């Protein structure tokens, strides 16, 4: 197999990896916000359900969660799984896992906001929604950006866990080419790919942080 063929096979996997990454963020970021509201709810039941959810998602391996999401429908309910479900399983497992981490990051950010901001907004007559979306959330985003960057970088690397259900993202392909061609090159290419991807992600987040540094 020529280098060119190898790289073209890998690059198809790269597109899949990027897609997993983007879709996971798209679903887990808002889902995390909803879970963080549950976690901060005054309702005992809702608060504790959110707490247990977060505890399980953070306390068990992502790879195991992925296997449960993928094989669960068959083993538990006897539903036969189509091969197209593989992609969904990856996105579902990653999203519900990362949402738990994001929920705790949001909670930390929201709880760190001084009461004075809520009080000023209340006296000025802002509604609860206006207060949250105009006053609180923009400031929370600035505060949590460094922690979110950490999670996002971890996610880039975690996409490789999709190999455990043989989903054809970049790492799965690299592994199979390496085995069939008895070559290290696919692994080197994979490493370079993840590194460059993360370098790009980190630069983007740094740029965003700088953009928000106009206030304290």
């Amino acid at each position, binding site marked *: 197999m020529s280098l060119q063929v190898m790289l073209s096979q890998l690059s198809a996997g790269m597109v899949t990896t990027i897609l997993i990454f983007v879709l996971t963020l798209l679903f887990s970021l808002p889902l995390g916000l909803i879970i963080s509201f549950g976690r901060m709810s005054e309702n005992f039941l809702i608060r504790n359900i959110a707490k247990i959810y977060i505890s399980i998602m953070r306390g068990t391996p992502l790879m195991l969660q992925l296997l449960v999401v993928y094989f669960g429908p068959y083993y538990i309910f006897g539903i036969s799984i189509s091969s197209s479900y593989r992609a969904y399983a990856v996105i579902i497992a990653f999203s519900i896992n990362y949402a738990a981490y994001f929920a705790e990051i949001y909670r930390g950010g929201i709880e760190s906001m*001084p009461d*004075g*901001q809520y*009080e*000023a907004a*209340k*006296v*000025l*007559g*802002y509604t609860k929604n*206006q207060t949250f979306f*105009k*006053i609180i959330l*923009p*400031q929370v985003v*600035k505060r949590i950006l460094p922690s979110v960057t950490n999670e996002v970088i971890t996610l880039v690397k975690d996409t490789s866990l999709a190999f455990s259900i043989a989903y054809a993202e970049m790492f799965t392909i690299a592994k199979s080419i390496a085995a069939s061609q008895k070559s290290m090159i696919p692994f080197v290419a994979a490493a370079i790919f993840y590194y460059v991807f993360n370098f790009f992600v980190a630069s983007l987040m740094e740029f965003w942080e700088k953009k928000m540094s*106009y*206030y*304290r």
Partner: protein
Amino acid sequence: MKKLMEMNHVKKSFDGNEVLKDISLSVEEGEVVSIIGPSGSGKSTLLRCATLLETMDAGDLIYLGEKAAKDENGKTVYVKNNELKRIQQQFGLVFQNFNLFPHYSVLKNITDAPIHVQKREKEEVLFEAKTLIEKMGLSDRADYYPCQLSGGQQQRVSIARALAMKPKILFFDEPTSALDPELTGEILKVIKELAREKMTMVIVTHEMNFAKDVSNRMIFMDQGVIVEETTPEQMFQSENQRTREFLGQYHNLG
């Protein structure tokens, strides 16, 4: 004279600790009322009850004849939220720690609520805000962010923010306590100017000279009750033991 605000037999406890014990107070249009007293006397809690930041346990709260809260058999019952929101527009509050929105510029801090809460014409709000900014001596600071301003400037912005809502009555919760001594003067000057314009104000303060100068009426609170309520002149010649003790701690009373 029109009564703008009225509180009747207000009680408030925190964890069984009675902070306000049967307080009654009313403010008429054009009046400047100062509330003084030692820390823990309940004066800030009283202000927070008046501005709906704290709920009262018992008593009435009335703005311009409209009941925001009514005592029913010794327990305060508040009116519905949408009515409270409307009543809330009658007053403004200037905080000790300014509580400006740090992600908004000076201009946006002042104009955002009039535009998005009161839904007033943007043009008109901007025009009025510029006048207010000028009045506060911040003409060259309209595009600055709060973190780029001194404490005194931030407090002036927060006064402008409150005034932009066109409140009938303006409350101040120790407006100079978070400021360096050399910056308190500029805030006191602004409040005096507002008093000259007949703005109705209730001011919780530790600045005795200022309170004496600016107010029509002074209220001395201690341990959750109003000990004395009178003109500044009489307050400073009080025969009351507790009042004399408290005022005696402040030197150069002028």
